């Protein structure tokens, strides 16, 4: 090995060792453990083949959490991206008070999700909460927003959108600032309307940003469950159980680590699919200047 190669390996070594220990090895270990029973009292878990996966197929809570998570992603991803784009267009314009607006939109990003969840929990509280006070003032019937299966998931989705839209706005803002002003001038001379310019010029140019934001939004929809812990604990009746929350419960409330590993494999597959999707998309739909 040459001297420079040796130097390079030494430089990479600490990072590689830590990544192997806390990312690669756990990924392999998760797959391995998913074929084993949960170790009990010092005995390693026995090889049980696909039993964990069979259990999963019959686990109503798993299917519920997967379905919930899909609905949650389908709600939060497009809405927060659309809001982020609109926010960015506003903040990027010469609108009066745009600094103030940028602050209003971005502040939720800086707050811990757990703090955000506490604030919103109070907002949704039956009888005392602000939402109840508002609907009560309008003469509407009292409704337990977080305690009713039909509305609970929507409530936690609202919290996620509120927290994330401002974060994604930043990326659109950065991208908008790289769009050459000559494009708007040319479009104006051609007599293009705002809507036309947005659809035919800006959106295609922003495509790489949209893709980047989308992949991040999807990952976050499957990775971030802090607010579930605070607001609903997966309830009522598993209406807000997301996949990672279910893994957390199986792994650390029931300590069924073998089964939790099998559930994690599903989550890893979803995240891997998002990554591969990004790769494939990058080649085709994305329009570079």
């Amino acid at each position: 090995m040459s001297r420079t190669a040796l130097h390079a390996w030494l430089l990479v070594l600490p990072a590689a060792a830590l990544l192997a220990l806390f990312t690669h090895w756990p990924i392999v270990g998760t797959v391995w453990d998913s074929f084993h029973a949960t170790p009990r009292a010092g005995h390693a878990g026995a090889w049980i083949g696909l039993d964990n996966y069979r259990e999963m197929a019959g686990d109503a809570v798993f299917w519920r959490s997967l379905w919930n998570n899909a609905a949650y992603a389908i709600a939060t991803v497009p809405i927060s991206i659309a809001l982020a784009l609109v926010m960015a267009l506003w903040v990027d314009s010469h609108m009066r008070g745009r600094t103030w607006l940028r602050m209003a939109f971005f502040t939720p990003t800086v707050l811990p999700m757990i703090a955000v969840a506490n604030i919103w929990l109070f907002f949704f509280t039956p009888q005392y909460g602000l939402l109840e006070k508002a609907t009560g003032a309008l003469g509407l019937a009292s409704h337990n927003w977080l305690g009713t299966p039909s509305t609970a998931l929507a409530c936690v989705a609202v919290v996620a959108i509120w927290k994330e839209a401002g974060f994604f706005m930043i990326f659109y803002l950065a991208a908008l600032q790289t769009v050459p002003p000559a494009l708007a001038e040319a479009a104006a001379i051609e007599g293009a309307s705002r809507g036309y310019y947005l659809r035919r010029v800006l959106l295609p140019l922003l495509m790489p940003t949209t893709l980047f934001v989308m992949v991040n939004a999807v990952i976050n929809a499957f990775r971030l469950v802090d607010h579930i812990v605070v607001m609903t604990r997966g309830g009522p009746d598993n209406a807000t159980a997301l996949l990672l929350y279910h893994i957390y419960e199986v792994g650390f409330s029931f300590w069924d680590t073998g089964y939790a590993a099998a559930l994690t494999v599903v989550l890893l597959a979803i995240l891997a699919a998002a990554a591969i999707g990004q790769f494939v998309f990058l080649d085709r739909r994305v329009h570079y200047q």
Partner: protein
Amino acid sequence: MSAKPLAGWRVRGSLLDKQPPTLDVVAAWLLGALWILPLLYAFWTAFHAPEFSTRFVLSAPLTLDNFRRAWAAAPFARYFANSFMLVTGVLAGQLVVCTLAAYAFARFEFAGKSVLFALVLVQLMIMPDVLLVENYRTLSRMGILDSITAIGLPYVASAFGIFLLRQAFRMVPRELDEAARVEGAGPLTVLWRVYVPLARPVYVAYGLVSVSYHWNNFLWPLIVTNSVTSRPVTVGLQVFSSGDQGVDWSVITAATLMTSGPLLVAFLLFQRQFVQSFMRAGIR
């Protein structure tokens, strides 16, 4: 909508008019107000006596009592110290580990480089956040559960940091590197004297993102800690608010604002820096 030809060439109302239509301004302000409302509400509740928590009387007396009671009811001072040690420790580790690796990926040729880099990128998609069960077991074998090290260690080798710094290092002109080497500087000296100073804005950006991430992180710390001596503020807040506080929302809200306080104040003071850092960190 089709393209409407404008009567002549005018700026007002056209694409070149940076003043958006009034309707947009109204909508923007409404959304902005809606966005800040939950926070204002939290501030209102935290700074007023419980009987005013949903009664918005402007004459309601302000009070710090809720903060006093929250501070006295749980070891928040310790939680803050833990969080502080966590974010500084993680950041220090990340800066060293990621700088070294990024330097190798940016400026060295070695066998297996591209495979290794691909393996690094895996962590961008699959973060330690989702590998709870296995990482818990690893730390348990190492015998360091329930410690600040246990919370931070899985995050020290950050793919995001390596990626960001590698991009920055690749922008450094090779002539600077070579000039330093001609003068007899070794690889580490070149890194320290040439690359690190030139990548300063990226370090600031990464630092802010990392600090906010780890100050706010919750699920993993919740799992690996179970005592006052290692809990960060997020977990402390959860233990506090789900404990025997009942529904004393004023106190819980005060505690909530307290835990977000340092970041919130830093953000309001250095808004531009924050926004630019997050932007820089996002452009890959």
